[in-house]
């Protein structure tokens, strides 16, 4: 189940399948809460796989921080099953982020212009929405982020 992600010279392992299985159990419920279907936060133009390798680690680190600080925290639901799944996903994200921080400490996670530009695009899509709507939409797009990671 472990997958090795090659992000330029930063190489980490993570259990993508476990995250994917966890998300697939809540996907329909979470995506159904997102009624704004004519806009999207994680767009192809800013995708990880279309980013040059040296900038991939930085971009992923910033996106994971966005999810940890402003998605998992702001997502509200009375459904305890969904809450359990999202906190488990948040823990998995935290584990990945710690590995990326090690790369950062070893200078293998530089932030070039491309990563900075793409992240600011993603942030602006995110901030077009209210915090709660943005959290719902971003959580519903977790399958897109996992697919980006799958292709690393």
């Amino acid at each position, binding site marked *: 189940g472990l997958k090795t992600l090659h992000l330029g010279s930063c190489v980490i392992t993570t259990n993508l399948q476990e995250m994917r299985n966890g998300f*697939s159990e809540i996907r329909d419920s979470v*995506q159904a809460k997102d009624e704004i*279907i*004519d*806009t999207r936060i994680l767009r192809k133009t800013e995708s990880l796989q279309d980013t040059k390798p040296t900038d991939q680690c930085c971009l992923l680190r910033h996106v994971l921080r966005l999810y940890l600080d402003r998605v998992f925290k702001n997502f509200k639901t009375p459904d305890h099953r969904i809450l359990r799944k999202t906190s488990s996903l948040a823990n998995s994200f935290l584990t990945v982020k710690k590995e990326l921080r090690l790369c950062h400490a070893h200078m293998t996670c530089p932030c070039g212009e491309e990563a900075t530009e793409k992240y600011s695009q993603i942030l602006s899509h995110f901030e077009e929405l209210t915090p709660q709507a943005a959290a719902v939409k971003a959580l519903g797009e977790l399958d897109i982020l996992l*697919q980006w990671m799958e292709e690393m």
Partner: protein
Amino acid sequence: HTAENTSDLLQHVKFQSSNFENILTWDSGLESAPDLVYSVEYKTYGERKWLVKESCQRITRKFCNLTMETGNFMEPYYARVTAISAGGRSVTKMTDRFTSLQQTTIKPPDVTCIPKVRSIQMIIHPTSTPIRAGDGHQLTLEDIFPDLFYRLELQVNHTYQMHLGGKQRDYEFTGLTPDTEFLGTTMIFVPNWSKESAPYVCRVKTLPDRTWT
């Protein structure tokens, strides 16, 4: 959506997908008017504009093939159906978000079971999909799912089965009794996406042993 109760016109609008053949299906309500017609639109998630599916406008059937329109298997899509009755009542309903890579199911494989005197050979044929690569050639399930593998079982008797499996497509169960019937099953597994097919089943009889006759 019209204010009056129109839920009887249209229900269960959803994609049914297997081997990346993506069919939009829906139901009308119990006592719905027989003169209902339906029109289909679709779009990529994140786009503003709904696109008209030309061949599914004002149709009376309750399905529409959107395989080509939803052909990027990593892309999320939506579709919606508008039901209109002769009396002018109408309602529009939308699918959940649909990404075929995640939601397509896997059909049983196509297998040729070849009986011999003391063995049975099972040849699994590649499963092509409607999805085309950049150069236009059709992708197989194996192309799309690198972790795809096969699991084969031969029921020898009530208590004993033989098992084979792997990524190759040619298998042979050996050491069998001549002139005996066996039940073979073959399944496809895609662990990364927790997908597995229904079994392909073949009932086959080994050949009689004529060496001493």
